[in-house]
């Protein structure tokens, strides 16, 4: 099966003398959750901008459903009807006076009828749990609310593929949980979700597959494979995750629990057979 979107051997540098990507290949498959990891300046955001046609690669192609994306208005419009990107800083995305207006920007651009626009906006706000904020001015929102509004703006486009650049950055732990729950709901609803992060444990718990963007290239593999590869992690300025080590400890204690979050770890601890349980 074709991936929804595919980056094929992309080469790119903002400054021709300093390439950022030197041959990046990555496929985004329908329904598969992908986490993109990498060091600061590794090129995650750049890769996303290339995938959305916001930058033009020096070499290589972006393919939508197996077809090369044409860089004219038609081609880019088709791409962006299918794929939406949520930037890291929500302030870059919010510019209208209030939340509902901002979310309506994309659907209006699609040329939908007023009724259809309203329906889309309402659905998106509800999906993000911010229906009550509809007529709030965007500049009075908290950071987490802004983030949700920005995501709602993308969701209102009903994309097949939703790409989020560091969506959990700056959120408190409960905010991260809520966001992941929202993304899972979207995923269950049929949207393919891709996100970038610096948090290895987050990638471990959430993703089916991990892509590491470093030194100009992309390395894609199953989560456990990447997170088991200490050399790869070190070379990409990432550290190991807690969870795999915890799993080994639990295994040694004869427990079958495989916690992915600290909360799950404490639940597993409570479930340990009394014989081995620490007090």
């Amino acid at each position, binding site marked *: 099966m074709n991936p929804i979107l595919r980056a094929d051997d992309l080469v790119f540098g903002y400054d021709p003398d300093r390439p950022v990507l030197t041959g990046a290949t990555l496929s985004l498959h329908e329904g598969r959750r992908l986490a993109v990891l990498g060091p600061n300046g590794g090129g995650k955001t750049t890769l996303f901008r290339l995938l959305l046609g916001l930058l033009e690669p020096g070499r290589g192609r972006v393919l939508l459903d197996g077809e090369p994306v044409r860089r004219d208005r038609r081609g880019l419009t088709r791409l962006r009807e299918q794929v939406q990107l949520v930037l890291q800083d929500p302030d870059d995305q919010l510019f209208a*006076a209030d939340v509902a207006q901002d979310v309506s920007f994309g659907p209006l651009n699609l040329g939908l009828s007023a009724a259809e626009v309203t329906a889309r906006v309402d659905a998106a706000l509800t999906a993000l749990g911010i229906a009550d904020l509809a007529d709030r001015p965007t*500049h009075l929102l908290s950071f987490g609310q802004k983030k949700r509004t920005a995501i709602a703006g993308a969701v209102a486009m009903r994309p097949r593929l939703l790409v989020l650049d560091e969506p959990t950055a700056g959120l408190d732990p409960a905010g991260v949980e809520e966001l992941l729950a929202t993304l899972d709901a979207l995923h269950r609803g049929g949207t393919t979700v891709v996100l970038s992060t610096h948090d290895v444990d987050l990638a471990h718990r959430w993703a089916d597959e991990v892509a590491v963007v470093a030194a100009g290239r992309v390395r894609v593999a199953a989560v456990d494979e990447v997170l088991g590869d200490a050399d790869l992690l070190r070379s990409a300025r990432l550290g190991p995750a807690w969870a795999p080590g915890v799993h080994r400890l639990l295994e040694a204690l004869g427990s079958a629990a495989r916690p992915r979050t600290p909360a799950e770890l404490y639940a597993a601890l409570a479930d340990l057979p009394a014989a081995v349980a620490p007090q």
Partner: protein
Amino acid sequence: MHIAEGYLPPLHAAAWAVASAPFVVHGARAVVQQVRTDPDSKLLLGAAGAFSFVLSALKIPSVTGSCSHPTGTGLGAVLFRPPVMALLGTVVLFFQAVLLAHGGLTTLGANVFSMAVVGPWVAYGTYRLVRRLGGGLGPAVFLAAALGDLATYCVTSVQLALAFPDATSGVGGAVVKFGSIFAITQIPLAVSEGLLTLLVVRLLVRVSPDELRRLGVLPTPPATPTAKEVGA
């Protein structure tokens, strides 16, 4: 419309620099004064200068399908007043010359005269006049931006005509010539800039009313219950 580096003969370049100088010096005095009474306004002025620079990096779609850039003089003059714009405009034009090679150092005086002096004054005068006559903020801003833009181009036409009189019809003919070349491209652009400025200000009234009040564009309400933020 920037006159490029090296375009004007030395006498013209010098004369326009002399013509602009009093306005720029007056603007500098105003800024020095303002900064002395309120040191924090330095940051606001820096932000305003950067805003003016970036405004001219917006790409307006134009009839021909190509893009053009707004002059931003209208919005700048309404928001920051002409004396301050004379200085900020000079700074911005200098930066455009040395960062983008857009405009030039020898033509700085001429460009300042059209874009940082005449444009802002025409825009501001229009704005005040329309408001005085009871016009709303919207029409005032639209006309200020459109006429400010046109005035800038008229001055540029005259500057070029003086430097390059027409072979047969002299300076007068050259003014008509440069003027009509610009008119074809500029009248639609002036309308575009007016419209865009109108939309921006309308959005700002909703998004940033406090800043507009601070700049005197919106009337200050009688009581201002603001948070106690202290910078000193």
